[in-house]
């Protein structure tokens, strides 16, 4: 690991001033940053340790019925907060399907949004990567790319965003609260992460020094609590990133879909909100034919970026299954294997 200056600021303004200097990186849980630093993928000259900043580790119910989650709330603490899991069950399920118990005890809300892709060429400093070195090329194109993006990719980058947490969050219209040199601002999570285009090194809406202070969920997000699921297909049962995942939430009344939310994970450089599919679901009968049409709409713009055409069909099936299990109802207790297709999901066909 390269040498760095270590700073532990006492306040948010001090942190922002310190991190605005070139070569700086914030440290919170460190579960991704230290891994990247050990591999020489990133070598900050200055570490700004925000892990003890006051006020950022609270979960607050807002007067308008919304929720404000401090950026330093640990993944495990959020997922096991009983009121949170009851109101936003698919978010809790997504959190518990990610990483391991040890990592969830350390990893934070803000850090989850900012985690880097797990593209192996990004991690291998001997390989060309436009994210790591702008203009260097992309070794994943034409490389081992069966896990890579099928939506929103470009010839400059075909990496995916690895977060589970962000998938239900983007479906529920989460908003990122950012503090920077110009004060506080709100950016929707849907707009927070950027698609690669010609500038894959630019991954999100943050400017130098900007600090994520909280993630907000609007009041409406809790209205899906009775019919919401996160489903995640992995190459092993636990402790693996998603091949494809889906967050599905419905409000069904008299067999008709009155509200629908759908987002996909593991398919693009950002958590992928499927708005065309949601429009198709709205007002339709809640049945498998409708869900299949929605799945087609969600993947209509998909194309393989390499040896990963299977992910498109896999994603369609995961969408159908996630919607089917959402319709069947949120289980009283999270399954033993959160988000796993190997858990017994009520209402879902095992071969869907």
């Amino acid at each position: 690991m390269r040498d760095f200056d270590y700073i532990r600021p006492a306040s948010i303004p001090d942190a922002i001033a310190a991190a605005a200097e070139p070569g700086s990186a914030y440290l919170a849980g460190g579960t991704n940053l230290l891994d990247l630093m050990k591999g020489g993928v990133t070598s900050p000259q200055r570490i700004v340790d925000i892990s003890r900043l006051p006020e950022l580790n609270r979960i607050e119910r807002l007067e308008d019925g919304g929720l404000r989650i401090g950026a330093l709330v640990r993944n495990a603490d959020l997922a096991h907060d009983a009121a949170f899991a009851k109101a936003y069950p698919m978010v809790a399920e997504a959190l518990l399907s990610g990483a391991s118990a040890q990592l969830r005890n350390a990893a934070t809300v803000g850090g989850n949004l900012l985690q880097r892709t797990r593209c192996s060429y990004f991690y291998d400093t001997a390989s060309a990567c436009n994210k790591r070195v702008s203009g260097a090329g992309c070794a994943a194109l034409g490389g081992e790319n069966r896990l890579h993006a099928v939506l929103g990719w470009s010839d400059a980058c075909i990496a995916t965003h690895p977060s589970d947490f962000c998938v239900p969050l983007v479906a529920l219209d989460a908003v990122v609260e950012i503090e920077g040199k110009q004060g506080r601002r709100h950016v929707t999570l849907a707009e927070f992460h950027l698609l690669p285009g010609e500038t894959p090194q630019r991954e999100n809406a943050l400017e130098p020094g900007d600090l994520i202070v909280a993630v907000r969920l609007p009041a409406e997000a809790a209205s899906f609590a009775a019919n919401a699921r996160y489903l995640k297909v992995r190459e092993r049962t636990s402790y693996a990133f998603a091949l494809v995942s889906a967050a599905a939430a419905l409000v069904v009344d008299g067999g008709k879909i009155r509200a629908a939310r759908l987002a996909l994970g593991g398919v693009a450089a950002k958590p992928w909100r499927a708005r065309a599919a949601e429009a198709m679901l709205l007002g339709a009968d809640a049945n498998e034919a409708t869900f299949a049409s929605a799945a087609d709409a969600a993947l209509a713009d998909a194309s393989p970026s390499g040896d990963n055409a299977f992910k498109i069909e896999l994603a369609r099936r995961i969408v159908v299954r996630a919607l089917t299990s959402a319709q069947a109802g949120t289980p009283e207790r999270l399954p033993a294997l959160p988000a796993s297709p190997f858990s017994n999901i009520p209402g879902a066909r095992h071969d869907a």
Partner: protein
Amino acid sequence: MTSLPITLTINGHRHELEVDPRVTLLDLLRERLDLTGTKKGCDRGQCGACTVLVDGKRINSCLALAVSHDGADVMTIEGVANGEELHPVQAAFIAHDGFQCGFCTPGQIMSTLGLIAEGQAGDDPERIREGLSGNICRCAAYGGIVEAVLEAQEQLAKADRRTAA
């Protein structure tokens, strides 16, 4: 970079240390304090061999900077037994052959202590397996590990009932 002063309580003992900011909690334990029970497997947060309890919660000590944990209370495998008397989790790992080569065992035991304290898995073997999925055992002693966790929980619950009575 100059060293920075930190204070850590490790297995009940207070340590005042000067550390290079790059030093992980894992390397500090092993290389500076000779607490080599905590193992360095992958050093990248993927294997769980370095699991310790920090302020009562299990984490990967390989992905923790020591300076960032100034003031923390750390428990390692060396702090688990009561003198010569094994902790019920340690005894259960032996009774149920919850290991073969033993390299992952300190991490497995610290992770089990975290799992039991979290209280999420209960006596469901599938929830225990899921709760311990961050600890890899290349000898694949998983069957014995789950049996050990089930028995240790039972022993600890009995001890709690005795204390309560």
